[in-house]
C-alpha cells in the first residue's frame, strides 16, 4: 500500500491567476480520498494539474514515484490516470458506444475492450439501452453514468472524479456514490472532488479541505466529518 499519487508544493496558474498555491497531498493505493472546498477553491485545478491538462509551474506531481509534472495529458492517461472532468465532457455527437470506445482509446486488445464494456453495462444497464443514441441526447444522469463508464474503459489505476453528483436527482446521486464505493472495493483507487461534502466524506477514507488554492485541513474522513470548521462551512451544521 504505497503512495500511488503524490503532489508536493504544487503551484498552478491560468495566465496570471494563481489558482493553486502550494498544494501537497497524496493518495495511497486502494484509497478513496476526497477533496472538498467551496466554489473556486481550486479542486478542479488540482485534478487538471494531475492529469496534465494544465502544468504546475512549481512543485512536483509523482505517479508511482515517477515525475509526471510536465507530462502531456494523453500520456498521463495512458499511464493509468482516469479523469472524469467537471461537466462530464461527453462527446455530444458520438454514440454511447463510440463514447465508450474513446474511453478505451489507449487499449489495443479488442477482447479486453469488450470485456470492460460488459462490465460498464453491468454497472449501468441504462447505458446499454441507449447504446446507439448520441451522447448529447442523454439526460444529465445518464451522461454522468456515461462519463464514469468511459473513465472505467481505461481500467485506470486511479480514477479522478470531478463533482460526479452535480445536478443529479438524489436517487441518482445514491446510485453514483454506491458505484464509486463498489469500484473502490474492487480495487480502483479514487480521488473524489465533491461539493456534496457529507456524501463524499461518508465513503472516503481520508479527505483534504481546500480554500482559495491552499489545503487548510486534512484528516481521516470520519474525523473531518466531526470537525467543527468543516461542519460549519461545508456541512451546513451550526
Amino acid at each position: 500500500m504505497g503512495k500511488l499519487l503524490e503532489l508536493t508544493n504544487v503551484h498552478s496558474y491560468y495566465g496570471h491567476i494563481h489558482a493553486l498555491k502550494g498544494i501537497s497531498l497524496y493518495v495511497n493505493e486502494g484509497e478513496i480520498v476526497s477533496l472538498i472546498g467551496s466554489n473556486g477553491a481550486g479542486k478542479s485545478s488540482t485534478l487538471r494539474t494531475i492529469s496534465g491538462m494544465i502544468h504546475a509551474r512549481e512543485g512536483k506531481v509523482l505517479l508511482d514515484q515517477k515525475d509526471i509534472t510536465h507530462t502531456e495529458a494523453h500520456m498521463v492517461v495512458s499511464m493509468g490516470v482516469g479523469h472524469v472532468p467537471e461537466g462530464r465532457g461527453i462527446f455530444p455527437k458520438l454514440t454511447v458506444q463510440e463514447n465508450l470506445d474513446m474511453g478505451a482509446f489507449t487499449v489495443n486488445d479488442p477482447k479486453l475492450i469488450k470485456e470492460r464494456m460488459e462490465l460498464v453495462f453491468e454497472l449501468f444497464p441504462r447505458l446499454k439501452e441507449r447504446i446507439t443514441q448520441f451522447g448529447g441526447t442523454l439526460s444529465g444522469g445518464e451522461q454522468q453514468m456515461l462519463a464514469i463508464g468511459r473513465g472505467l474503459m481505461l481500467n485506470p489505476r486511479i480514477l479522478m472524479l470531478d463533482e460526479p453528483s452535480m445536478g443529479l436527482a438524489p436517487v441518482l446521486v445514491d446510485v453514483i456514490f454506491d458505484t464509486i464505493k463498489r469500484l473502490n472495493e474492487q480495487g480502483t483507487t479514487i480521488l473524489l472532488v465533491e461539493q456534496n461534502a457529507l456524501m463524499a466524506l461518508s465513503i472516503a477514507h481520508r479527505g483534504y479541505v481546500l480554500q482559495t488554492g491552499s489545503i487548510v485541513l486534512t484528516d481521516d474522513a470520519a474525523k473531518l466529518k466531526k470537525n467543527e470548521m468543516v461542519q460549519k462551512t461545508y456541512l451546513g451544521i451550526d
Partner: protein
Amino acid sequence: MKQFTSNPFYKFILFPVGQIVAFAVGASLVLSLLTVLLAYIFRANITDFDLVERVLLILPQVVINGLTIGFVYSTIALGYTMVYGVLEFINFSHSEIFMVGGIVGVELMAYFDHTGALQTMNQYVVIALAIILGMIISGSLAVTVERIAYKPLRGAPRLVPLISAIGMSFFLQDAVRLILSLTTGEFNVILPQFGTFDKFLVLAVPGIEAPLRFQIKNLLLVGVAVLMLVGLNYLVNGTKIGKAIRAVAQDRPSASLMGINVNMIISVTFLIGGALGGAAGVLFALKATKLDPFVGFFPGLKAFTAAVLGGIGNLTGALLGGLILGLLESFSASYLSTFTSGAFGAEYKDIFAFAILILVLILRPSGLLGQTVGQKA
C-alpha cells in the same frame, strides 16, 4: 434493418456511393428542371430558334461537364471543411497545397516523358503514380505548414492564424515559382501528351438527339474522386483514427483525457486534407493540361465556396456543395448567352455561381446541411 445498416459493406461502400449518386443525380435534376422551366418562360421572347429545344440539345453534356468539375471541387472542399471542423479555422493556403499536388504530378509525368518511359508504361499506372506522389507531397506539405505557421498561433485571436494562412499562400506560390524557374527556367508546367485520355466514349441514347460524349479523362477523374470520397468516409466513420478526429472536433480537452494525442490528430487531419487536395490537383491538371504557381486560386476559392455552401465543417455538405457549384458553373457557362441572346456570355458564369451562393447564405446562413465534422458523415 439494423443488422443490415451496420453491415460494413452497406456502411462503407453502398451507403457512401449511393449518397454520391443521389447527390449527383438530384442536383443535376433540380438544375435541369429549373433551366427547362426558365426556357419555357422565356421561349416567347426569342423568335429565331426554339429555346427549349436548344436547351435540351446540349443538356446532357452540360450536366456531365458540371459534375466532372464538381467532383474536383468536392475533393478540394473536403480539405477546407475537415480542417475547419477540427480547428474552426479556414486554411487559406489549401489552394496552394492543391496547386503543389498538381505541379508535382505533372512534373512526374514530364519526367517519365523525358526518360522515354512514358510511351511504354501503362497510362493508368502513370496516372496512379502521379496521384500517389501528389498526395504524399501535398499531405506532408500541409502537415509541415500547420506545424510551422498555425500551431504556434493556436490560442491566438482567430484573425491571426488566418493572416498567417494567407501569408503562407503567397509564400508557397513564390516558392514554387522560384523552384520552377531554377530547375526548368519556366513558370509553367505542361502535361505531356500520352495515352488515350483525350478520346471520347460516345454513347448514343435513344430519344436524345446528340449522343453523350464521355471524355476518358473525365470518367477517370470522376472515378478517382469517388474512390477518394468513399475512402474518406471509411477513414472518418470506420476507423479508430477517424473516431478520434471526430472526438477532437467535438471536444478537444475531453479528447486528450481519453488518451488521444490531440496534436497528432490535428496533423493527421491536415495530412488527409492535404492528400485529398494533392489528388485533386493532379486530376485538375489532367483537365487544365497547363499549370502555373497561381493556378490554385480560383479552384481553391470555388472549393471554399462549395464548403460554405454545403455547411462548413460538414463532410457530406462539402461533397454536395462541390457538385452544385460545378453544375452551376457549367450551366451558366453554357446557357447564359443563350438565355440573354448573347448579352451575357460564359465569362459571367462565376458571378452567377457566386450570386447563388450569396442567396443561399442569406436564406440559410449555416449552409445547406449545417452541422460539423464531429457529425457522422
